[in-house]
């Protein structure tokens, strides 16, 4: 029973309306705190889906406002947070660099959640380096099927974006880049598509049931590496808290136990100088693959090593490093000379020769007496090909313009497209020629493309001559092109 004194106290404590809620729901990333944590990119897509909004709307309208309120715009790059957000399947969003930190911060402010950085690789920022995130989304079909069986929508794991993980450590199958196998069954319009991790972007099939590819069995080495990645992701908070110093201390201890740094470098396929410098300098970082190789050959757990502990890994026996030390063979200069001579007769470029012999252009340039003629011959061939292309384009446009004139139609892009066989993209050479020719024929409304400014005087002269030929049929006053002054 609530008495009047209690009501009086409540009234005196009353604060009126509460502060506004965050614009996005505070749904945490799936499986947060485990190795199967949802990636930030997938989380953004899932949140947008829960809000019944397209992710583009959230990124374009909600997040920029949140970022503005955060007051960090001055420190942020010039563009707003939504710029190129889904390029390479949100690669910048899940990586370990500044843009990922920015995304995590904005998403945290927009949802009121904490710890979204553990849905990215940001905790590894001070420990490792390298291109860790894949350019595309990969999936384990069995994991997606398991999500579906649990009655939930599938989601994209951060593990699947980690380049060193090539298979699913749970189902022991290689990850797939799913492509829709249902040709001709695309959704009626772009409107119908829902961008969601684990759902086909073309036909909307949940769990990519539409795919053609079959997932292959993974090798034990792949499984071990994927397991290591899984454990690293599960331990991200502890790894971040530990910082980079304990890893060095642990590797130093390892070197003391099992031989010197050079011995470890030899076993792990790492350059000795890199390993030595890394041990000396606090700001140096080793690549994730290199650390993984050290763990493979020393039979250690990577997640533990990153926290400064040396713990034996059970499945690593007999694994070799994945990175092979680069070998430098001496250059066979006789072979280079004969290849350059051959290139002159076979009309090949210096680039082709360099590719074939696995040498760089500087090595070829040492044989100047042959290198220069080969380059000049290539340049001449390219110029001829370019000229032929231009002449063909002018000829094509002239024929088309003549046809239009005969039919009494104006020279416009729309009419040109109606000609059928003369379809051209706005960026094509024919389109540029067409625009310049319209100007030459006296059409003052024609807007010359920016590319036209780069056309040489010979080219413009030819277009002008073609316009001369066309003018009687079209009957407009010709405008002289500015090629004589060049």
């Amino acid at each position: 029973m609530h008495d009047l004194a209690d009501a009086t106290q409540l009234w005196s404590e009353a604060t009126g309306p509460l502060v506004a809620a965050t614009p996005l729901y505070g749904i945490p990333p799936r499986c947060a705190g485990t190795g199967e944590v949802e990636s930030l990119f997938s989380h953004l897509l899932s949140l947008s889906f829960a809000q019944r909004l397209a992710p583009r709307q959230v990124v374009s309208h909600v997040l920029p406002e949140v970022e503005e309120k955060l007051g960090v715009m001055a420190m942020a790059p010039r563009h707003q947070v939504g710029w190129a957000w889904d390029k390479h399947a949100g690669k910048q969003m899940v990586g370990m660099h500044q843009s990922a930190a920015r995304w995590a911060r904005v998403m945290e402010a927009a949802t009121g959640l904490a710890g979204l950085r553990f849905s990215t690789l940001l905790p590894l920022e001070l420990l490792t380096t390298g291109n860790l995130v894949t350019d595309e989304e990969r999936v384990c079909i069995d994991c997606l099927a398991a999500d579906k069986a649990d009655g939930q929508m599938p989601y994209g794991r951060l593990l699947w974006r980690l380049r060193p993980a090539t298979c699913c450590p749970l189902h022991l199958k290689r990850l797939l880049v799913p492509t829709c196998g249902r040709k001709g069954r695309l959704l009626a319009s772009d409107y119908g598509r829902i961008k969601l991790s684990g759902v086909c972007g073309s036909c909307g099939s949940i769990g990519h049931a539409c795919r053609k590819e079959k997932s292959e069995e993974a090798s034990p080495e792949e499984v071990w590496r994927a397991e290591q990645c899984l454990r690293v992701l599960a331990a991200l908070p502890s790894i971040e808290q530990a910082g980079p110093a304990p890893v060095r201390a642990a590797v130093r201890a390892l070197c003391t136990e099992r031989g010197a740094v050079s011995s470890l470098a030899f076993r792990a396929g790492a350059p000795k100088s890199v390993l030595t410098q890394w041990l000396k300098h606090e700001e140096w970082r080793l690549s994730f693959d290199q650390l993984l190789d050290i763990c493979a050959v020393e039979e250690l757990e990577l997640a533990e090593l990153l926290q400064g502990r040396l713990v034996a890994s059970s499945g690593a026996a007999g694994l070799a490093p994945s990175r092979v030390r680069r070998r430098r063979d001496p250059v066979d200069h006789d072979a280079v000379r004969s290849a350059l001579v051959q290139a002159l007769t076979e009309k090949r470029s210096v680039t082709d020769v360099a590719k074939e012999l696995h040498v760089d252009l500087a090595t070829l340039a040492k044989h100047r007496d042959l290198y220069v003629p080969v380059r000049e011959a290539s340049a001449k061939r390219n110029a001829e090909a370019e000229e032929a292309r231009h002449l063909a384009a002018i000829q094509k446009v002239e024929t088309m313009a003549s046809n239009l004139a005969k039919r009494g139609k104006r020279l416009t892009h729309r009419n040109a497209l109606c000609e059928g066989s003369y379809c051209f993209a706005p960026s094509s050479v024919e389109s540029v020629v067409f625009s310049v020719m319209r100007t030459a024929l006296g059409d003052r409304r024609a807007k010359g493309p920016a590319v036209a400014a780069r056309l040489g005087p010979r080219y413009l002269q030819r277009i002008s001559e073609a316009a001369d030929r066309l003018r009687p049929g079209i009957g407009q006053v010709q405008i002289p092109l500015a090629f004589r002054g060049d």
Partner: protein
Amino acid sequence: MNMNLPTSSGDCVTPAPTPCQATPQRLTRDEVLSRPAEERLSWFSSITYVHPKLLQTVAHLQELMEPANDIKIIALIGPTGIGKTTLIDKCLHSLVQRFAPVRLPHEVPVAMVAAPANGERSLSWRTIYRRMQIACGGVLLDQQRKADITNDELAAVRADRIGLAQRREFLEAEVRHRRVRLLGIDESHHLLRFGSSDAMMDTLKSLADIQAETKLMLVGTYQIAPLLTTYGQLARRSAILHYQRYHLSDQPKDDSPTEDEAAFREVLKKVEEDWPCEDAPNLQAAWKFIIRASLGSVGLMKMQVTQLASLQMGHKRERVRKLDVQRAFKPPKMLNQIEAEMVAGEESLRGACYGEADLDDPDSAALWTPTLEKRRA
């Protein structure tokens, strides 16, 4: 205007609770009196007076808001101008916070909307749902789209405009994700313009059923009472909370006032102490007139005396004149109309409100009378 208006979380903490007290306020009357008329009036009108009827309503509201009980619809009913909206604006969030002290940043414990009265001949649920969604923190409502799963394929449903069913679905998602514990409709007597009462009651019931922890609150005048008392299914899960006015006895006496009269006089005393002009009218002496002129409603009284203060400030020496009183208080014809509606409303609510269970049955006494064994123990 940059002034420190009285707020509930002011520096000046009020003393121990008394039956009648002003809300905590940052400025005292002496400080305010030196300020311009506009600021003084604003300060005065923002003061909320706490009185027994208000506290009783808050206490009952607190009981009904307990998440454990099965009451899903709470109707806060009272005469026009008594201060229902002020009450819910002020303390509803605090009430909800008592039962759910931890609030996550995305959560919206209370979502109050006003039922629209925009000239449409019939009520549009779409408008109410939309307002509710905004109150629940919804963003980009016009950009929302429905998704359907057919044969394990997910696709957005193309529609030229968001239909009623879709809007409802979006609202339900919003209520669930934002963990709304109280969904309120102020001015809910406007709902009566809805064509079919049955359909409306079904909709209200389903709104309250969106999730277990959500309650629906209807705030309005006596007109909404029949909605809850007519339908048995709703009556089972709803409670009517009557925010009552003070009654003047047939022969009021200065020296022996009734409980209602004493409480009203306490409020008048406080108003007089807070009067925003140097020359305060003798409100306590005219208590019988004021209680009659405001029909016992503290809200209506506050509105009229604020008007009186405003008129008083318009004069050079800020003296209260007879003409001001004549203008500030409601004329008899209007008062009679309001009173007639109040009396009819109170009559219709008799025996239907929270705390009015029938205890005439002698067997009911066993519930609160201790048994002999207990007495011995």
